[in-house]
């Protein structure tokens, strides 16, 4: 790199923060819970949709075999 060009590393905004182990551990105590709640809610909605279609559309359409 030529000396008249600036590097992204010169800007503090562009450089990753130093990871504080204690802070990371405290964040990781809550983040997985949030991810589980989000994924659980989405899967629950999907299952609910499946059950509604199964009971309100598929079953009333009659037997098949």
């Amino acid at each position, binding site marked *: 790199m030529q000396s008249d060009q600036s590097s992204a590393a010169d800007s503090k905004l562009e450089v990753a923060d130093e990871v504080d182990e204690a802070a990371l551990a405290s964040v990781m105590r809550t983040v997985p819970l949030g991810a589980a709640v989000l994924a*659980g809610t989405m*899967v629950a909605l999907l299952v609910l949709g499946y059950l509604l279609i199964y009971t309100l559309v*598929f*079953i009333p*359409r*009659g037997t*098949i*075999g």
Partner: protein
Amino acid sequence: MSDTPHELQESRILRTELLWAFGVGIFVAASLSMIVFTALTIKINPPSNVERIDPKTLHLSGEFAEQNLGTTVFGDGTVIVRAIATQFMFVPQCIAVPANRRVTLRFASPDVLHGLLITGTNVNTMVVPGFVAQVHTEFTRTGDLLMPCHEFCGQGHSEMWATVQVLPADQFKPGPDGRVSCAQR
């Protein structure tokens, strides 16, 4: 020796994953139980009939010869519908069936792959040349239902459809030979 934060985090993730796997296991078991329950109680099963037929000669003699196509009521009350799916029509074009009575639908193709569904019902099958597609069902509502071909079978595919006329018991009257045709309108 106490666990490091990293080990605590690992064990927490493992617990979450096990819990999730347990939930998924419950869901899969519940879905399978529901399928088995409906199969045993209200006879809802995936149609699974493996029966071969020669596509080159099926229209010449035997079950799918022209005089056998359509709806037939047998002495024991069994209702069997036979139809041919061919490019680009169903033969016959209109099928009369009784409401609230078990009906066996049998289809064969002399040319290419076809498929069919009957609107508003769970009847939905492919008609593979060389095999007889068979579906047992019971129609619960009277009226005319559309039965289109749902497997692309060539240039005329979009014109290939038939009508299923579901008749109430008092209008479903087999002739002396047991045959029933669509009511003239």
